[in-house]
């Protein structure tokens, strides 16, 4: 697949800004280094040309920003969507979270985004990172060059990419991809094969790392409540920090239940977590269960799609079957 260039995206954005199709461009802005890229709302040609970037470090899913930005900004917003971001885009529209008419969506290809933490695992002090065919070439402050293979440094969410196909756009740049075969449920199956004690031990050790920074929730495109129960002093369960090991798990389990059937498996939760908790596994467990009990279901494939958890058919699985499976 031909890699799309930053220039091609900038050119398109400038064109749409200048012919007044859009007033804003939601994209990614260069950072201090080659990897610390920030989502940004561009308003003019000059900033776009100087600071817009699309590289292997644009892992941030921009869909969720549309909830706030379509309310905040008066004009139409151009948003660049990678294949997996389009699922979130559709799911948000299904939930009436933003006004589609205020958005011009451009689908762009993605070849998997990189995880700077994985790059930094065995090296300290980066002066630059150059993308190569096979992965990256990292130049260090002590003048060494280290080559790393892409597969080893992909973001967790990209390691098991489910699709290179876009499910929402007004316009597509670059080549369209396909839905991919993937092994995204392998880790879940491994957890399912554990004994209850082992599984408890696994989640206990993972969730006890949580510092309750809420990054998983705040990055999650499915978490768009105007006021999260955990931030609301009137909810009775407002909680800034776990008081005990029960509460430690409570937050994540409730969150996983709340996004069940709506989570598109975009993987932002695990990418955002500063403590490396594999939160996507909780969500994937729900997706796997839904697939097994109700038939294959992927959230975000189209707008207005009714998930099995919010629709009823007489063929629906009996609660007792689900219960017995958990034994």
């Amino acid at each position, binding site marked *: 697949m031909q890699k799309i260039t930053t220039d091609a995206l900038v050119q398109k954005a400038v064109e749409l800004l200048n012919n007044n199709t859009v007033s804003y461009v939601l994209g990614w802005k260069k*950072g201090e280094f080659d990897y610390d890229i*920030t989502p940004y*709302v561009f308003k003019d040609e000059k900033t776009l040309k100087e600071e817009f970037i699309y590289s292997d470090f644009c892992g941030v899913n921009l869909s969720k920003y549309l909830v706030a930005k379509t309310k905040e900004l008066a004009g139409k917003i151009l948003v660049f969507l990678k294949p997996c971001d389009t699922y979130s885009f559709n799911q948000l529209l299904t939930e009436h979270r933003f006004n589609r008419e205020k958005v011009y969506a451009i689908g762009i290809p993605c070849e998997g985004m990189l995880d700077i*933490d994985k790059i930094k695992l065995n090296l300290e002090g980066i002066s630059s990172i150059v993308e190569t065919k096979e992965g990256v070439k990292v130049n260090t*402050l002590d003048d060494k060059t280290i080559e790393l293979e892409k597969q080893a440094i992909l973001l967790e969410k990209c390691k098991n990419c489910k699709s290179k196909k876009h499910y929402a756009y007004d316009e597509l740049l670059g080549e369209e991809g396909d839905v991919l075969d993937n092994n995204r449920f392998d880790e879940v199956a491994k957890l399912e094969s554990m004994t209850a004690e082992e599984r408890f031990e696994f989640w206990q050790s993972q969730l006890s790392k949580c510092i309750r920074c809420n990054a998983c929730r705040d990055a999650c495109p499915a978490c768009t409540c105007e*006021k999260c129960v955990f931030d609301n002093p009137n909810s009775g369960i407002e909680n800034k*920090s776990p008081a005990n090991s029960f509460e430690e798990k409570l937050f994540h389990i409730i969150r996983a239940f709340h996004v069940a059937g709506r989570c598109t498996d975009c993987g932002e939760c695990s990418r955002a977590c500063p403590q490396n908790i594999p939160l996507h596994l909780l969500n994937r467990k729900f997706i796997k269960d839904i697939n097994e009990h109700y038939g294959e279901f992927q959230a975000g494939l189209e707008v207005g799609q009714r998930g099995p958890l919010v629709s009823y058919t007489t063929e629906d699985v009996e609660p007792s079957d689900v219960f017995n499976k958990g034994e």
Partner: protein
Amino acid sequence: MRKCSLSAINSIFEEIAKNTMLFLPVDNKDGKAEYKKWQEGFLLSEKLNTVKSPKEFLFPQTENLMEFKTSGKNIEIIDTRTAKEDFVVFGVRACDAKAFDILDKVFLTEPRDSYYASCREHGTIITLACNKPSETCFCSAFGIDPANPMGDVSAWKTENEMFFEANTEKGEKFIELIKNLTEKTDNKEVKKQKEKISNIMKKLPLANLSTEKFGGGKTKELFDAPEWAELSSTCLGCGTCTFVCPTCQCYDIKDFNTGKGVIRFRCWDSCMYSNFTLMAHGNNRNSQKERFRQRFMHKLVYFPENNDGTFGCVGCGRCLSRCPISMNIVKVMKKLGGKTND
């Protein structure tokens, strides 16, 4: 100054751990450094720094303050403070050691925080010079020298040896404790190591980050700067930056109903949260722009204003590495600082 060979360092840890709790950065399963209580087989991490800062040794994320028990109309207040044990934190970097001084200014000025003070009194801090500062480091902007870390004892690591020098009375005690495992030496090797570090420092991309535009008295100039809107425009409002920060010290006090009584505890809070300092009339910072501005104004203007010019940031770079959208204090300083930073 005293030294030991690097191969003897584990016997030093063993000796310390015999007498007192010892915490040090070790590599965890995720391949990142984390402070852990030393036990046989634990190796000092080679990583530059830990994901979470060592502030939790003095200011834990949650800490019980007191308990209440009610019977009829009587409330019994139970003081839950217990005698703290001595502990040693080994391998603290210069930035994090300086962060303790900043926390001291907050917690040890009157009214003194007895919970914090008790941790401070019982802890001995052994710092370790940074042999390989990273591109995310900017401690020098705040006058910190990673080659000369403070704390109760300063340590330096060379290729084959570890050097120790006491800075305080507590530090002297520590040196006494490891006396038989170390030998007296001059500071020649350490001097060489310091030079090496200084040379790296000059090459760091953030070496010339300027604080000129910031400090006490700059509120009027910076508070209404138009840049805050765009800097904060994609901030998620999560608390990652505040929770990994070694100097962020805000907390909330909460009551936990146990069913049999109430535990009053405090926990870290984040000015990035919508319910931060929530009052009966509502919140005084309603937008993420205001919350975002508060965090940086506090570190760069309000704190130095109230603390003789000391900034509330130590340039450890944790927020640079951990922010899910890569927004951070360096970007704020460069944007607001204008051309002087280039």
